[in-house]
């Protein structure tokens, strides 16, 4: 089992290198004089030793794999021991590109530009399944089936994600390849140098310039995928609507009937179906008079058989201290969907309405900036509509018939005429098409007038998507006056992996491992949210022990996520990597436990409907007790001492990026954003799920609303998590960890449910609609980080560019969840 590393390397030496070595040995035996080749061979040894021991990778991370790449660079694995620790933020100084994560169509032009800017000799490691061949997201409409379709790759590292040790082994494989090269054959000392790779263009789908000449004729040969609907269901059970939800709906209906009469809405179970004309007035009345001041979730469902699209709104009342939420729904015609915008009432509707426009094509009348948000302008079609089929479409629902019993392996690209994940509309004319990207800044006219008085020149700066401080592939389009931020527009979608479309093709159970990849720093929390949402429809009772295990995992997860966030916020403020290294060290200890319990450091896939996948191993509890009682308190205390009172931290963070409580609620921010702005709101207390009502803990609140408070609230929350852990570890009972039998196929009763958990990055909600089958009809993720970004431009205006980095860092986004 244990392989000698030298054997591993020897196995990996390419054949041509072995030939060269053999040839040289033969020469040395037959010719006594020093030959030119022998001299070169000696020179090669030195030359390659130097090159392989000083590989400079580019600071460039895409998705989940990037987290493991950073862990590899941190102190536990320390990639610096291989001379490859000098991560360069600019491609011009780097010679290794580690493509770490899912390559999306929106991101691939940027990756190729970066690659072209790297000097020769340059190497590429495709890290993980996604970068290699599309991975689990391969069928997604915005995912490229492998970066090697565009740029040459030297080493492929398997894994999803590869563990840090696997990445180090991949690096050694690359070193072995370098060792096999000779200065004699080095093409990078000859001219002409390699041709730059032309970056693809964003059209109705991604357009490779090299394919343009054949595009027009091949479009005609392209086959339109035929939709294969699933089998009809015989018997459909209907889920029960919980009583408290019905009560609040009755109450709201009563109020609205008195106020607007009967024609404004009709009640349907726990939902109020509002007439479009009345929507804004109804929302305003609910907000101002009933106290429903918080728009939690906004999405849409495509009911294709009824010819309508339904926009769904979930509202809570923070003012009244929580309780069940109410559903508003608006029906609109599928062919010409129009709904009044709720942005004037709830600022938090901004990005969510844009997302619905992007995915369903619903036009929100009166929205200030209704453009695509996750995809790009000009993309063909609205992907979440049921009749929109992706290029690799096979069947409406998994499992696909082609896998069993006659499952002859055939890659999806072989079925596609383009050999890659693209499909063009039949009337697409590449000659007439003008590949222009629009760059629209949103500046208020009065601001422009004021700027003109100053007579200074404004410039637009694009920060990201390849930027070390944007926490992934995220772009801020900033309008600057000198160094002051005048306006800002977040641009996202570079990591849009089509989570929801894939989620609707998947069977219910299959979505668990996908939720791991949403917010890949809070996998246990994501599993938790999905499990409790579907359990609402299933109506299963989770065994006691499983509830405790769930809470223990979720709280450990919160600590490791907060550790990471604090470290990287300090990175953004300029304390480059020292705090991060200490934080990552603690995080590694928690990840060890996850690996022991669930089998993977990151992608835990641990929860199941009605419990968890496995019981805890026997050695787990003593370890976690030691961690919670001895190591973590000491670590948090040290971190607190190290950072909280530090003068530089205070100067850089206090009073910067202020968000008031009213704004925070109106913009639908959640989690630490609310609590740092003085709103005492935590779903574990205000809408208790699982068994959180049993534990004694506080909700920390700070009132400054600035970066400092958003940092310090995390320290306070970690202390509270330790308190919960302490109690849970004390009280955990023996017993089963899963209700009922283990079943690979789950049927969920007909109905809809919204479930949410307090994740480290705010409220993570799942909205699922079941038609009684084995797959969700609609699967929507209410992402905390995505909606928190609505507040970014409000927080950043008027501050300096350098503060902007800190402000973004304090929101603490994870792009897997923002773009989904």
């Amino acid at each position, binding site marked *: 089992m244990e392989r000698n590393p030298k054997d591993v390397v020897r196995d990996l030496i390419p054949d041509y290198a072995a030939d060269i070595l053999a040839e040289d040995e033969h020469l040395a035996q037959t010719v006594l004089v020093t030959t030119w080749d022998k001299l070169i061979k000696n020179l090669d040894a030195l030359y390659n030793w130097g090159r392989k021991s000083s590989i400079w990778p580019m600071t460039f991370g895409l998705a989940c794999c990037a987290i493991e790449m950073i862990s590899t660079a941190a102190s536990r694995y320390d990639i610096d021991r291989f001379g490859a620790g000098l991560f360069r933020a600019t491609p011009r100084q780097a010679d290794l590109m580690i493509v770490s994560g899912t390559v999306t169509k929106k991101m691939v032009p940027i990756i190729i530009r970066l690659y072209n800017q790297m000097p020769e000799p340059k190497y590429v490691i495709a890290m993980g399944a996604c970068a290699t061949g599309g991975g689990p997201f391969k069928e997604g409409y915005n995912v490229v089936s492998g970066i090697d379709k565009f740029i040459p790759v030297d080493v492929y590292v398997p894994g999803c994600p590869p563990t840090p040790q696997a990445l180090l082994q991949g690096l050694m494989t690359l070193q072995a390849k370098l060792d096999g090269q000779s200065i004699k054959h080095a093409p990078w000392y000859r001219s002409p140098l390699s041709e730059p790779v032309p970056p693809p263009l964003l059209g109705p789908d991604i357009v490779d310039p090299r394919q343009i000449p054949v595009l027009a004729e091949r479009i005609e040969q392209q086959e339109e995928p035929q939709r294969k609907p699933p089998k009809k269901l015989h018997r459909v059970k209907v889920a029960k609507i919980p009583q408290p939800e019905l009560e609040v709906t009755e109450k709201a209906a009563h109020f609205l009937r008195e106020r607007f009469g009967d024609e404004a809405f009709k009640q349907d179970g726990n939902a109020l179906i509002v007439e479009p004309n009345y929507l804004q007035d109804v929302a305003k009345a609910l907000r101002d008079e009933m106290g429903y001041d918080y728009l939690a979730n906004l999405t849409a469902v495509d009911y294709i058989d009824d010819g309508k699209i339904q926009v769904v709104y979930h509202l809570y009342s923070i003012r009244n201290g929580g309780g069940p939420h109410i559903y508003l729904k608006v029906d609109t015609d599928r062919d010409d969907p129009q709904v009044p915008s709720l942005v004037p009432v709830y600022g938090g509707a901004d990005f969510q309405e844009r997302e619905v426009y992007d995915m369903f094509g619903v036009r929100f009348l009166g929205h200030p900036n209704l453009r695509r948000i996750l995809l790009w302008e000009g993309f063909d079609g609205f992907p979440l509509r049921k009749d929109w089929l992706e290029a690799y479409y096979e069947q409406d629902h998994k499992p696909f018939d082609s896998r069993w019993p006659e499952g002859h392996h055939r890659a999806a690209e072989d079925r596609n005429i383009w050999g890659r994940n693209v499909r063009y509309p039949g009337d697409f004319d590449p000659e007439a098409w003008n590949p222009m990207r629009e760059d629209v800044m949103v500046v208020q006219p009065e601001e422009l007038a004021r700027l003109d008085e100053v007579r200074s020149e404004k410039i637009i700066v694009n920060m990201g998507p390849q930027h070390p401080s944007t926490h992934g592939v995220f772009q801020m389009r900033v309008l600057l006056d000198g160094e002051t931020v005048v306006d800002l527009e977040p641009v996202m979608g570079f990591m849009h992996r089509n989570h929801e479309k894939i989620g609707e093709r998947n069977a219910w159970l299959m979505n668990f491992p996908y939720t791991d990849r949403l917010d890949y720093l809070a996998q246990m929390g994501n599993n938790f949210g999905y499990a409790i949402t579907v359990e609402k429809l299933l109506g299963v009772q989770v065994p006691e022990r499983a509830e405790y295990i769930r809470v223990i995992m979720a709280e450990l997860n919160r600590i490791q996520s907060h550790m990471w966030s604090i470290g990287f916020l300090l990175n953004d403020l300029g304390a480059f990597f020292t705090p991060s290294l200490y934080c990552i060290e603690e995080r590694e200890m928690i990840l060890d436990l996850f690996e022991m319990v669930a089998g993977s450091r990151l992608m835990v896939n641990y929860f199941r409907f009605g419990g968890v996948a496995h019981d805890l191993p026997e050695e787990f509890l003593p370890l976690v007790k030691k961690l919670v009682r001895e*190591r973590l308190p000491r670590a948090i205390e040290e971190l607190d001492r190290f950072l909280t009172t530090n003068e530089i931290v205070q100067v850089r963070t206090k009073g910067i990026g202020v968000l008031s409580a009213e704004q925070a609620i109106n913009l639908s921010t959640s989690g630490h954003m609310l609590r740092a702005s003085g709103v005492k709101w935590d779903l574990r207390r205000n809408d208790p799920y699982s068994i959180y009502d049993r534990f004694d803990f506080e909700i920390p609140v700070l009132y400054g609303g600035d970066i400092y408070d958003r940092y310090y609230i995390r320290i306070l929350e970690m202390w509270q998590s330790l308190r919960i852990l302490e109690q849970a570890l004390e009280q955990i009972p023996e017993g089963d960890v899963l209700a009922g039998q283990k079943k690979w196929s789950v049927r969920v009763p007909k109905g809809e449910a919204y479930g949410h958990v307090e994740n480290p990055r705010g409220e993570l909600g799942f909205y699922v609609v079941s038609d009684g089958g084995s797959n969700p009809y609609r699967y929507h993720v209410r992402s905390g980080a995505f909606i928190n970004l609505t507040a970014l431009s409000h927080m950043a205006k008027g501050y300096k560019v350098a503060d902007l980095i800190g402000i973004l860092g304090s929101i603490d986004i994870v792009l897997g969840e923002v773009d989904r």
Partner: protein
Amino acid sequence: MFGFDFGFNFLKGMAITAKHFFATYVQDIKTMGKWDPPSANLETGIPAEITGYITTQYPEQRLPVPERFRYNPMLIYEQETGDIRCTSCGICAKVCPPQCIWIVQAKDSAGKTIPQCQEFYIDTSICMQCGFCSEYCPFDAIKMNHDYEISTYERHESWVLDMQELLVSTRYYAATHPKAWEREEAERAAKEAEKSSVER
């Protein structure tokens, strides 16, 4: 904003960094440089105190992986008889979230399906290593391999694993998954005993 102690807290932070720095040398001197990295899966466990560096000297040292660790899947054959456990019931292919498993059911000469698989492919460039296949397999025929040192120079040939590449012996499985092996063997023995008692 600041009182007379301006700069003092800054120095305190520096002292913490210095403590970490020197702790590494203290640790090295105490252990004469021979030192196992901390890991929940090693005897060193999780150290309660923060002392020095925690670096694993990969590849000279390797952090062991726990038994439940998941990497690529593997198919299991009996060491003694050479029988492949898989009956090609197809549950793994049906439960696989990214649908990366392809199975061809074997047929006898009359064209009737028999409980064996003729072809079995796993496309590891799609596999998300979720472990559902091994979790829901009723025959303990597919398990998650622990081998993560498998990087390649090429992917089209070597990342689509066919049956020969997937097969490992029960001995290999028993060595990597000792506890699961013990449990499964005990279950199987109990089942056999029950069966024979019923027959009697």
